[in-house]
């Protein structure tokens, strides 16, 4: 460690630069806009920093920044319920994706070695089609006269078509389907490296299969469970396309609110404030969870 300390920064420089240019700078821009006010001009907010105007103008612009937008975000009940329902839908989707992901990744990891690359390919395959088209396809499956209702009625399980499309259920189905590969891949990567004799040792010491799963397998792949859950939960919480296509008019998700505020109402500052609140609502528990549980 100490030996490499002198040149360590060289190795760390490219990722740091990447993060600064593509994450930190855009974040700061959004943060600045969130402190501005909507205005009927181009860009549609004030104040604007103008390097040509000199220090005095800069100070004036700085003084014009305010937390008004955050105050309106906090004061608006509708926005709060949008956040709440976004987090609930994201959490439910993550749990379902985790269960499905385990059910798929476990047999994948135990499949014969030569089949495993093919199986990984099959998991990744849907990602080669456009996200939008795949979400659209679910309309054809879920609509009242769609494939799902047709199949259920043909089997005699239901008489009337179920109203799935344009509900939160359809949104959860769409999100789980869209992000499942991002759950499966880390789980599979972790399970594939698993020494099967550890499971045999558990059975040998009297653990039934379910006990072995919860006491040995799950704790040992915990980092992958956390990674997969984050990869599903974070984009799901801010998801816009799936609720827009599959959700109903009463499906309130924050991604849609941000979209409407930004494009329909052209209130960039409020939309930015909404995005920053979303970021902190999603990231803060994640960072805290990481710190509390050193793997």
């Amino acid at each position, binding site marked *: 460690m100490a030996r490499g300390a002198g040149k360590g920064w060289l190795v760390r420089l490219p990722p740091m630069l990447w993060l600064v240019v593509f994450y930190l700078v855009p974040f700061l821009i959004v943060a600045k806009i969130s402190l501005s006010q909507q205005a009927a001009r181009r860009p549609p907010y004030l104040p604007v920093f103008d390097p040509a105007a000199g220090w005095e103008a800069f100070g004036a612009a700085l003084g014009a920044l305010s937390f008004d937008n955050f105050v309106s975000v906090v004061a608006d009940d509708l926005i709060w319920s949008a956040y709440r329902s976004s987090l609930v839908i994201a959490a439910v989707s993550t749990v379902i994706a985790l269960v499905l992901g385990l059910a798929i990744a476990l047999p994948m990891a135990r499949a014969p070695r030569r089949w495993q690359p093919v199986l990984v390919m099959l998991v990744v395959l849907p990602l080669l089609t456009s996200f939008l088209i795949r979400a659209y396809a679910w309309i054809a499956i879920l609509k009242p006269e769609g494939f799902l209702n047709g199949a259920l009625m043909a089997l005699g399980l239901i008489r009337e078509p179920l109203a799935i499309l344009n509900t939160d259920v359809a949104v959860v189905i769409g999100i789980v389907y869209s992000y499942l590969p991002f759950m499966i891949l880390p789980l599979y990567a972790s399970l594939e490296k698993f020494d099967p*004799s*550890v499971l045999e040792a*558990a*059975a*040998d*010491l009297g*653990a039934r299969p379910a*006990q072995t799963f919860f006491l040995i397998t799950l704790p*040992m792949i915990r980092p992958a469970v956390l990674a997969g859950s984050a990869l599903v939960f974070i984009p799901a919480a801010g998801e816009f396309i799936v609720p827009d296509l599959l959700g109903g008019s009463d499906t309130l998700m924050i991604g849609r609110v941000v979209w409407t505020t930004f494009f329909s109402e052209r209130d960039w500052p409020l939309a930015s404030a909404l995005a920053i609140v979303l970021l902190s609502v999603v990231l803060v528990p994640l960072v805290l969870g990481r710190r509390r549980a050193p793997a």
Partner: protein
Amino acid sequence: MPEARTTTDGRNAADALISIRGVSKAYGGVPAVTDVTLDIGQGAFFALLGPSGCGKTTLLRMLAGFETPDAGAILIGGEDVTAVPPYLRPVNMMFQSYALFPHMSVADNIAFGLKRQGLPRDEIALRVAEMVRLARLAGFETRRPHQLSGGQRQRVALARALARRPRVLLLDEPLAALDRKLREETQFELMDIQRRLGMTFIIVTHDQDEAMTLASRIGVMQAGRLAQVGTPQEIYDHPVSRVVAGFVGDINLIEGRVGAVAGRMAGFVPDGLEVNWQVAAGDAQPGERMTLALRPERLDIAASGRQGPGNAMTGTVLDAGYLGDSTLFRVALTGGAVVRVFRQNARRGDSGGLTRGMPVTLTFPADAAILLRE
């Protein structure tokens, strides 16, 4: 030796703790274990010995319940456990890779099996403390496996497997990952623990020295079959086949033809040598082609002309390897074959004066040779 259905202590097979009856197992049509019948008595330290791929590990895994036999039955304590899953069998296994739970402390690893038994808390704590003492792990209870040395991990694996006080402890190449010095120390520890607990140990190993040192009885496996079962001495002195003779210890194999058989003695004419040795006949038939097996340390070597009693052959020293306590000679016989001879160096500076190229005479008594048919 005809002792097929008796246990170590000579009791009847019905008293055997473990009874393996006609067990076979194949993987995708390739036989791994073929028709193995074996009884192991209570308190035995039994070694399954054989080269890799001989089926010894498959047999052990069938005892643990990880594999199901295609045919035959396995009885433990008189109860048929052939279809019983591993978590309900009264045996525990120590894995070659140790298979410790990486996310648990040493104490939690040892307690895992006890918790599954549903023992009360204080009983578990007592047993863990006892195992920690037995495996000399005091002070390491809260460490994770990755914070331990190889030898310590090996002892955690042993303590974890012993904690449930199984009727039988299965050990799959338990010392393979240790360096030589540690391996020797651990061998004696294992013997000591086995004797103190009076538990039945079954060890799988490819190391004949390990099997000879540890076991009260050895089963030599070859190509999925049990080639011979017996005490280390029986296996060494009375191997039933060339394969067993060659696998356990060093041996010279000399091809030839059986001559006249008179009572318990038979003549033996080795190929290419104009001699007629007198050896123990066993069940040899006159005129039969057989192999004569001679242990290198049962041969006497002397400069030509100083011939002692017994069967003799002549040759020249090819090379002499001085090992300190003994010297290993390779001698080219007059007929062309090469035999190995161990000579004990009883006194300091004692090399016998035998050097490369020197003509020598090798002699051996009639009872030192073993006639082998297979």
